[in-house]
C-alpha cells in the first residue's frame, strides 16, 4: 500500500493538494510525521565487495546504493598535487515507474551534480593526500550513485550514501615513486562530512524530507548542504515555484537542525562525521 506517487504523473491530484496543505496547517503530514521529521534512516556499508567503498542508505522506502571504484590517472594540470573524483547518478527504472531506462536524464545529472557540490565544496576529501606522484599519478575516485527504490527525496540519502561509501573506501597504497606497496591499503582521507536536507514549501508552510505523495503537492523544494561547522556548502532549488523570501532564513535554520540529527546518526553507524 502506498500513497499515489504524484510526481509520477504530469498532473497533481487536487484533493491531495488540499489535504496535504490542510494537514500541514495543523502541524501534521499525510504519513503521520511532523513537519520537521525525516523518515527512518538506515545505513549499511561495504555491501559490494568488488567496489573499493560502498553503502546502501534508506530513508523510508527510498533506497540509494553508492559504490566507489578507484583508478590511477594523471591529475588536472592546474591542480597537480590533488587527486580527482567524479560523481555520477542513475535513477534506475527498477526504482519507480517514472524513471525511464536509458542514459541519465536531467534529473540524474542534477542529482549527481548536487552530490558533487556537497562533497567538493564541503571539502569532504583531503584531495592532496590522494596524490601519489605530483603532476603524474593520482587516485581517481568514481563515485557512482544508483537509486534502487524511490519514494521521494533522493537527494539527502544520496549525499549520505556517497559520504558513507567514501568514509569506508579503501585504496591500494603506492610509494612516493609510484610503486605498488603489495598488501598495503589506506582509507580515503576524510576531512569533513557534509550532509544535506531537502525542504519542501507549500504556500507559507515548510516540511522536511518530502515523500513521493507530498512531492507532487509542493510549490517547490530546496536542497541545503552543510558541513560539520554548519557552513552552507550547497544550495539547490530543485523544482519550479516560488519560495517566500521571509521563509528563507528559517529554512536554513531548519536544515541545520535536520542535518545535525542526521550527522549524529551517521557518526553512530559509520564512525566519522
Amino acid at each position, binding site marked *: 500500500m*502506498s500513497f499515489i*506517487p504524484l510526481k509520477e504523473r504530469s498532473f497533481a491530484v487536487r484533493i491531495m493538494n488540499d489535504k496535504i496543505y490542510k494537514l500541514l496547517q495543523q502541524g501534521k503530514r499525510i504519513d503521520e510525521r511532523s513537519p520537521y521529521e525525516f523518515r527512518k534512516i538506515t545505513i549499511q556499508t561495504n*555491501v*559490494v*565487495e*568488488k*567496489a573499493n567503498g*560502498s553503502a546502501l542508505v534508506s530513508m523510508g*522506502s527510498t*533506497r540509494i*546504493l553508492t*559504490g*566507489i*571504484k578507484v*583508478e590511477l590517472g594523471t591529475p588536472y594540470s592546474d591542480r597537480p598535487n590533488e587527486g580527482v573524483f567524479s560523481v*555520477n547518478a*542513475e535513477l*534506475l*527504472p*527498477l*526504482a*519507480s*515507474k517514472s524513471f525511464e*531506462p536509458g*542514459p*541519465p536524464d536531467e534529473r540524474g545529472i542534477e542529482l549527481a551534480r548536487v552530490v558533487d557540490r556537497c562533497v567538493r565544496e564541503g571539502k569532504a576529501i583531503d584531495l592532496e593526500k590522494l596524490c601519489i606522484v605530483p603532476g603524474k599519478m593520482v587516485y581517481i575516485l*568514481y563515485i*557512482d550513485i*544508483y537509486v*534502487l*527504490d*524511490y*519514494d521521494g527525496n533522493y537527494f539527502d540519502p544520496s549525499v549520505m550514501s556517497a559520504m558513507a561509501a567514501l568514509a569506508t573506501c579503501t585504496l*591500494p597504497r603506492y610509494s612516493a615513486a609510484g610503486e605498488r606497496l603489495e598488501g598495503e591499503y589506506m582509507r580515503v582521507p576524510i576531512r569533513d562530512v557534509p550532509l544535506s536536507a531537502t525542504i519542501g514549501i507549500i504556500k507559507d508552510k515548510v516540511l522536511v524530507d518530502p515523500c513521493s505523495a507530498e512531492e507532487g503537492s509542493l510549490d517547490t523544494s530546496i536542497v541545503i548542504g552543510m558541513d560539520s561547522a554548519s557552513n552552507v556548502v550547497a544550495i539547490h532549488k530543485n523544482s519550479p515555484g516560488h519560495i517566500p523570501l521571509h521563509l528563507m532564513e528559517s529554512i536554513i535554520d531548519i536544515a541545520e537542525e535536520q542535518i545535525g540529527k542526521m550527522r549524529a546518526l551517521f557518526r553512530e553507524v559509520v564512525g566519522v562525521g
Partner: protein
Amino acid sequence: MEQTARPKLIDENGRRLDGRGPTDLRPLRIEVSVLEKSDGSAYVELGKTKVFAAVYGPKEAHPKHLSLPDRAILNCRYHMTSFSTDERKTLGMTRREVELSKVIREALESVVFLEEFPRSAIDVFIEVVQADGGTRTAGLTAASLALADAGIPMRELIAAVAVGKVDGRIVLDLSDVEDKYGEADMPVGIAPRSNTIVLLQLNGKMTKDEFRQGLMLAQMGIQKIYQAQCEALRKKYESSMREA
C-alpha cells in the same frame, strides 16, 4: 587490476579455488518483494553475485503503435552497476547487456501468459549489483520470481545456472575467475515443471559428451535453485497468512 598468469582452477583433490567440489553451488540467498515501489521484485545472491529484479505492469503500452492487439509486450533490461565488475564498467548499455536483455526476455516470454493482457506492456528490470559469474542466470532466476511476485499469470517459474569446463572438468556454477580462465561457459535456463530449456548459450569449446554431462549437471543445480525459489515465495506469502 593486475594481469596475472592463468591460475590453477582445480587442485589435485578436485577442489576449486573457493573450496567447492565440481558439482557444488555457491551459497544461495533468495528473497522476494524486496523493492517497495515496483509491482513485484526479487533479490538473488549466489556467492558474490548479487542481482535485483523488478517488474512493472501490465500497463498500457506506450507509444501505442508498439502495442500488440493479441498480447502484451514484454520489455526487459539487464543492466550492471559500474562497480559490479573488477574493472569499472562504463556507463550506459554495452553490447553484452543488450544481448543478455534479449535472451532473458525471450526466456521469460516462454512462460508468461502474455495473451491475457492484449495491448499492454510488462517491464522487467534486472540490475546486477555485483558480478562474480552467472549474472544472466541469476538475473533470469530473479526475474521469474519478480513476475510471480507481481501476480502475473505464468505457466511456471524459471530457474537458471551456468555450467562450464574448467581445467578439463565439467563444473557447476562458474565463478568469474573460472569463467575467465576456464575452457567453456554454458548458461542454462530451464522451466522445471515442463522440463524445457528456455535459455541456452555456450561460450567456449566442449566435446559432445562434455555437453551432455554439462546439461545434466545444470539440471541438478537448477533443481536446487528451483527449490530455493519456491521456498522464498512460500515463506513470503505463508507469513502474510499466518500473521493474525
